[in-house]
């Protein structure tokens, strides 16, 4: 299990903006270490989000996404007090879920 994410979700009008900061190495699999050996790929492959348990967002990520990635997306609907949960899964099969309350 990785380090915690930082999730901020803000409702305005009929939309909720979610901003997520994830702690992850995001090793691309293209880099070499000091002895010239390839560092194996280790990055997030899937990101999903739910609003009050209902899936609202899903994406697949590859090696081009930066270390400690920042993700922002907008959900239709949502109001203060709703729960937004974000989950990532990486190439090692590791996964982490964090939840935030919409403000």
């Amino acid at each position: 299990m990785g380090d915690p994410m930082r999730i901020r979700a803000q409702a305005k009008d009929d939309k909720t903006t979610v901003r997520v900061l994830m702690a992850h190495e995001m090793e691309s699999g293209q880099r070499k270490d000091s002895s010239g050996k390839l560092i194996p790929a280790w990055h997030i492959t899937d990101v999903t989000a739910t609003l009050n348990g209902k899936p609202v967002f899903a994406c697949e990520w590859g090696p081009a996404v930066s270390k400690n990635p920042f993700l922002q997306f907008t959900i239709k609907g949502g109001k203060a007090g709703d729960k937004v949960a974000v989950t990532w899964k990486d190439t090692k099969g590791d996964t982490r879920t964090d939840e935030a309350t919409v403000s």
Partner: protein
Amino acid sequence: MHARSLCLAVLGTLALGAPALAQKTSTQAIEEYREMLQDGNPADLFEMKGEELWSKKRGPKNASMQQCDLGKGPGVVKGAFVELPRWFADTGKVQDLESRLVTCMSTLQGIDPKEVINGQWGKGERANVTALATWVGAQSKGMPFNLPQSHAQEREMYQVGKRLFFQRGGSHDFACASCHGEEGKRIRLQDLPRLSGNPGDGVGFAAWPAYRVSNGQMWSMQHRLNDCYRQQRFPEPTYASDATVALGVYLGVNAKGDKSAVPTIKR
């Protein structure tokens, strides 16, 4: 027609001040890029880690850092960052934020300072100190720097720091002042603040710890100073040594009144 005349006007400006404009737009573009990144500054992740480390019971003594005295009394964090480095009665020394955190980790938690001082950047206990420094620094965001200079040792450290700043040496006959001694200097596209004077809000001493986007690392002031010396082709200074603290006093006192923007985000 209107669009065309506008286009001509733009071309006119380009022709007149092409080199100056090109330079300005690239630094401006970097400024914009930094602004965009500011919202999702991964320094927040290190801040969270630091906050956890502050209250977590750790080390041989199984204690937290919550009784650590950063200069404003045990456990007082807010405002401590903008008054460091300062003189501490218990150690009888002038200490910067990181050397003070190492002292607290040693006295409160029983963690051997050697683990930090002889450690590696971004690893083990040294990485923990950086995370703690990020969190402590963030608690004084927006506050103006006001380093104390009432103790004789604090004034002495300022003078030592000043000498180190201007001391030329190494294979390139360099000093901190070679890059940071006058206005308008830069390395590649990076503007360099004049640190022998007051650099202004959120610049120089008021900008570190910072997250480096290019390598995904969180850099403390100790790391920043260490790398400045490396770039000057000097031997690597010892972590939290008196020399690095003296430079901190010099930079910090010069930054008097400047508001802290810590933690910031850098290229």
